[in-house]
């Protein structure tokens, strides 16, 4: 049976949960509260709920975007773009925002189309950055993760899902979130 508070598995004759201490209710209650891991699937689109219709959206093609399409989108948004070939021989995009260079990597690719993006910005501080500040950033801020690399230089990154179900409206919104968060990161730690 399962604890109705924390979902931990418990023995049939247990009266208290060993994990959280909750009193174990009747068998019917705990059975009803327990998730069934084997039966769990990604939730389908709910059919029984009447949802208000949103404004029309432009869907991203099946499979995601090609690197050329991503570059064209950035260009259309007013960002200078260049392609860079990394050590692996794969291309990524360089652009800039908030006065800082940004790398954009496309991932989860099948053929030319990629289902995910990663925005990243790293800052060379010659090892002077106080790594203990990073946890506070990750605790207080949403959307982007921060870490220090092997040179103790700070990085900020954000991953974005393009497909399935991606839209250009969502992409614009997430890019704006990235830009705002990057600006705050730079300002907070004096990284200009």
């Amino acid at each position, binding site marked *: 049976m*399962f604890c109705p508070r*924390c*979902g*931990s*598995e418990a023995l049939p004759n247990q009266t208290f949960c060993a994990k959280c201490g909750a009193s174990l209710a009747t068998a019917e209650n705990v059975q009803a*509260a*327990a*998730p*069934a*891991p084997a*039966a*769990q*699937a*990604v*939730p*389908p*689109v*709910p059919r*029984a*709920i009447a*949802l*208000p*219709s*949103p*404004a029309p*959206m432009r*869907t991203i093609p099946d499979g995601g975007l090609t690197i050329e399409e991503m570059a064209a989108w950035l260009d259309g948004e007013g960002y200078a773009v260049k392609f860079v070939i990394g050590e692996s021989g794969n291309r990524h995009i360089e652009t800039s925002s908030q006065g800082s260079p940004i790398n954009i990597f496309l*991932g989860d690719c099948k053929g030319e189309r990629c289902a*995910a993006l*990663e925005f990243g910005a790293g800052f060379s501080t010659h090892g002077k950055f106080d*790594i203990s500040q*990073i*946890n506070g950033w*990750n*605790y207080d801020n*949403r*959307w*982007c*993760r*921060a*870490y*220090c*690399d092997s040179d103790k230089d700070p*990085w900020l*990154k954000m*991953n974005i*899902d393009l*497909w*399935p*179900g*991606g*839209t*250009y*409206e*969502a*992409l*614009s*919104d*997430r890019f704006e*979130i990235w830009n705002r968060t990057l600006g705050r990161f730079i300002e907070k730690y004096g990284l200009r």
Partner: protein
Amino acid sequence: MTHPIPDGGLTLEEVIAWLQSGGYAAKVVTREDGKRHIESWSQGTLFNIFTPGCQSGRSASLELVFAFSSKGRFDVSRLNEWNSDIPWGKAYSDTVNDPCLDIDIALSPGGTFESLNDQFATWNKILSAFIGKYNLR
């Protein structure tokens, strides 16, 4: 064909219905300050779903959070490696040095249930990997 999420995002009740339709147990929890969030379970692990910035009952994003009570025994310096190596979500320690994993999922503008499902599947994967890597059962 995609199934769009309404403008403004989802209500708490719609999130519950979406989770339950996929076989996930989910319930609304009301905190002392009157604010509500959702408790759900994935692979037997409890996590919370917050709906920040609700307007007219709809939230444009979800924040999924897992926290493990380690009674201060967890070495939080290990989390930098997680954030460096693992895309999606972020790890940190809370005010009592317990390890936490969270992910933000945008619902609006431009959200679809297909994208929500895909990001939720990502959450399930990183949650499982986080628990496994740091032995947080």
